[in-house]
């Protein structure tokens, strides 16, 4: 992945511009949200319970877990009427090491009471435009030999349309979704344009995770993902506020984890208790390392992390 003949000192000298841009982007992100009335918060990196997710494996820490995402804590704050929140936090996911993955990475999450998934996408467009503007790039980001035109609104495509076009099957009506992920990364993502960001939206209801089901089309969840320059950048939800429905989904996920991963997962009770107070809101999680990769014209995460895992 990196040049193995390089010493640590040489490597750190080479990636310095990337780390300087990281610091600069943090400043821009913080001022973007502060100027719009969002409160920056910090929540535990080491937590007694985390959201059960079959495909996200946590690191255990003396009976606790290292945070895989700050989502549950963010919603507990929202439930206590903190209306607009953001956080830049360290997250940890076991075995996720690759060109665009590091087991420890930085997540930018923000939430809006009264918002929905598409409003979070609008925010993302504004945020990326604001960063590009502050870095004097205007509406075009040079990336991997392409000029990405970030003029809003970005392209939007439903999961149904994207899959029908490039794979010939519709995950929204299909019973078996076992090929969803492989088709997404090997057929759908490579077909996305490199010169425009694109939003993949309206995921199958069974992939809702912590998002709410669309009231006019119960086959889909109000969930959207942002793709830029071949990278999955962010995942947005209209947040599910129904504690009973959320408990059922968690229960089914916990059963799957126990069956497939032989791991006992604890139900996040405090989070579920808080949900009864949660007002309709939108939330989004953005991998800020990838945002920094984008503005640093690299598709290798190790180029923007001082000490990536080997």
């Amino acid at each position, binding site marked *: 992945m990196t040049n193995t003949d390089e010493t640590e000192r040489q490597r750190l000298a080479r990636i310095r511009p990337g780390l300087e841009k990281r610091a600069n982007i943090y400043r821009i992100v913080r001022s973007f949200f502060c100027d719009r009335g969002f409160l920056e918060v910090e929540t535990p990196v080491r937590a007694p319970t985390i959201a059960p*997710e079959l*495909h*996200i494996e946590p690191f255990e820490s003396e009976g606790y877990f290292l945070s895989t995402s700050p989502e549950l804590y963010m919603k507990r704050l929202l439930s206590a009427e903190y209306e607009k929140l953001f956080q830049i936090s360290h997250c940890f996911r076991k*075995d*996720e*090491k*690759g*060109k*665009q*993955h590091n087991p420890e990475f930085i997540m930018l999450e923000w939430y809006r009471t009264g918002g929905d998934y598409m409003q979070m996408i609008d925010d993302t467009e504004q945020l990326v435009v604001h960063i590009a503007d502050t870095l004097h790039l205007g509406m075009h980001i040079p990336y991997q030999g392409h000029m990405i035109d970030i003029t809003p609104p970005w392209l939007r495509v439903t999961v149904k349309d994207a899959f029908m076009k490039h794979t010939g099957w519709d995950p929204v009506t299909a019973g078996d979704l076992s090929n*969803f*992920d*492989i088709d*997404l*990364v*090997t057929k759908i993502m490579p077909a996305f344009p490199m010169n425009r960001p694109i939003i993949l939206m309206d995921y199958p209801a069974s*992939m809702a*995770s912590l998002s709410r089901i669309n009231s006019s089309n119960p086959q889909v969840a109000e969930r959207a*993902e942002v793709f830029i320059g071949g990278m*999955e950048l962010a*995942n947005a939800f209209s947040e599910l506020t129904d504690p009973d429905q959320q408990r059922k989904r968690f229960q089914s996920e916990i059963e799957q984890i126990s069956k*497939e991963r032989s791991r006992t997962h604890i139900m996040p009770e405090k989070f579920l208790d808080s949900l009864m107070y949660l007002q309709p809101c939108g939330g989004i*999680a953005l*991998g800020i390392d990838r945002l920094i990769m984008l503005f640093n014209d690299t598709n290798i995460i190790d180029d923007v992390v001082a000490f990536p895992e080997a």
Partner: protein
Amino acid sequence: MATDIEDIRKNSKLLINAIPYNVDDAEFMKPGKGRAIYRLKLRNLQDGSAFERTFHSGEKVDEVSVTSQEMQYLYKQDDHYIFMNTETFEQTFLDEALIGNKKGFLKDGTIVNVLLMGEKTLDITLPNFVELKVIESAVSNKTDTVTSQAKMVVLETGVSIGVPTFIKEGDILKIDTRSGSYVERITAKK
């Protein structure tokens, strides 16, 4: 040995349908909330051909230990070509069928690279150049002299190759084993 796909790295060796492959590259891809996908670039260790294959997390593959060892070719016995590790003097063999066309450039005493999977010999790599003696030379056909490799000779290994007309029986020739072609004459017949 069944290994989790998660533990496969670049240069791991896999056995798929009884054919050994080298992992030339292993790419980890994962949708944020989805299953991990591993895209492997595989190289067939027997014929060098390459292909890509995608695996889901949770899949298992057969990992094998493949090593390369310098050995000396000793002799042929029935259908077996016998090689010896020059340090340990241990011997191993490779079937004539697996040696294929390489047998035409394999002379007793030649040092080759032997690819081993455990105790089993998979393949050999010849030195790029070998020196072989001409044992039979046809009379040159005068009309062929316009081309540089105008006549066929038989080498001591039994293989026939095209050479210039001045080559005679007893000459030692330098042969490129990759193309199987004549390079130059090392010594003239005394």
